[in-house]
């Protein structure tokens, strides 16, 4: 009991929870992407170092008794995806404004447990997810420079559109 009382940290949660949609997508392909290839893909693209067996166990415990282990239908998880959207193939990708960072964020972006109100209109900050849980994306100097240039370009486009609307 004394041990339980001293357990003040949050319960352990797999780092794969954040990319569950992506893993599910790869496993629901026919033929499914092997766990070994998923592991190497995650390492290369997202910098997440994970053993293939870990991904297998991750899928297994969520398979709800399926004989061939598979994650539950995607619909139930899509609204849990973070600041990623889905491309034409339905594969989770980050918002186009957010560059793929080589440096991992302290904690990956996620939907905050305690929501913060925003207006119903288009958000003022397109890359920011309101909430009190840290979900910022850190950039290297090169990535920051590229992002600023992209942002400048978009702001210029916005300005031009506003001016043309005024002209009409």
């Amino acid at each position, binding site marked *: 009991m004394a041990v339980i009382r001293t357990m003040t940290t949050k319960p352990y949660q797999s780092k794969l929870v954040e990319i569950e949609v992506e893993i599910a997508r790869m496993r629901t392909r026919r033929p499914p992407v092997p766990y070994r290839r998923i592991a190497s893909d995650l390492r290369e693209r997202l910098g997440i170092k994970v053993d293939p067996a870990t991904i297998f166990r991750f899928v297994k415990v969520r398979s709800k008794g399926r004989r061939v282990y598979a994650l539950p239908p995607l619909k139930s998880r899509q609204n849990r995806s973070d600041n990623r959207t889905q491309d034409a193939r339905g594969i989770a990708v980050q918002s186009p404004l957010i560059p793929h960072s080589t440096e991992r964020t302290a904690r990956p972006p996620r939907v905050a447990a305690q929501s*913060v*109100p925003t207006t119903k209109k288009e958000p*003022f900050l397109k890359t920011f997810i309101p909430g009190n849980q*840290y979900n910022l*994306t850190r950039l290297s100097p090169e990535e920051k420079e590229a*992002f600023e240039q992209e942002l400048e370009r978009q702001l210029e486009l916005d300005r031009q559109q506003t001016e043309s609307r005024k002209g009409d």
Partner: protein
Amino acid sequence: MPCKVIFTAGAKGGSGKTTAARFVLGYVHQQGVTPLIMDLDDESKSLSRFYPEALQVNIHEEFAHDVLIEKATSGRQALVVADLKGGTGHEILNWFLDVPFNDLRQEGVEFVCIGSVTSAPDSVQSFLNWPAALGDRVSYIVFRNLKDGDQLFDYENSVQATEFRKRLSPAHITIPKLSSSYQAELEIRRLTFFHVLEGSNGNSSDGQPLGPILGTLMARARLRSFQARIFEQFDTVATTLLPRQ
């Protein structure tokens, strides 16, 4: 009479919101402006500790924050400085979303949001909730508070903060790290820089003893130079801070 409402924003406690408000108050006082000071932080009442004349608001009452608008539209105040509660900014942010900014602008009421960010990542996260919700309806002054370290990585190098700076063009004020012994003395004795620097004969401007640490000539010289570095920066954003003539 046009009125400017300066309010501190940010859900995280201890990021330096009240410190920022104190420097703003010191600056506007020096410019000969007497603002209405409102303390809407019912837990720590931190601004009231330094400014006993501050109007304390019981924010637990429904629509308690409406008093901010009432004062701003009363025609008697040119400047209102409000220190909002840290820790849980959601209720206040919800309240702000009801504020008719356009109508108030026509009445001459403008809002300036003061944020304070430190090297703590959460200070940036919590502050960005405000511009994300309020957008360009208010002006922004961000205090880069270096009390916990010189590197504000999440403010300088995150995607979201970069977007904020590009889209909403905030003004910036840097608060260097103050000697911890001076900081502690100011807190314990509930003194502002103004109280110390305007005092004489070992007493503050309101008659309190300054004590052995703050009472020395060198301590006052250092505080004066520290304050001057901040006020020089305020000069560049004076049009945002001071009421319209």
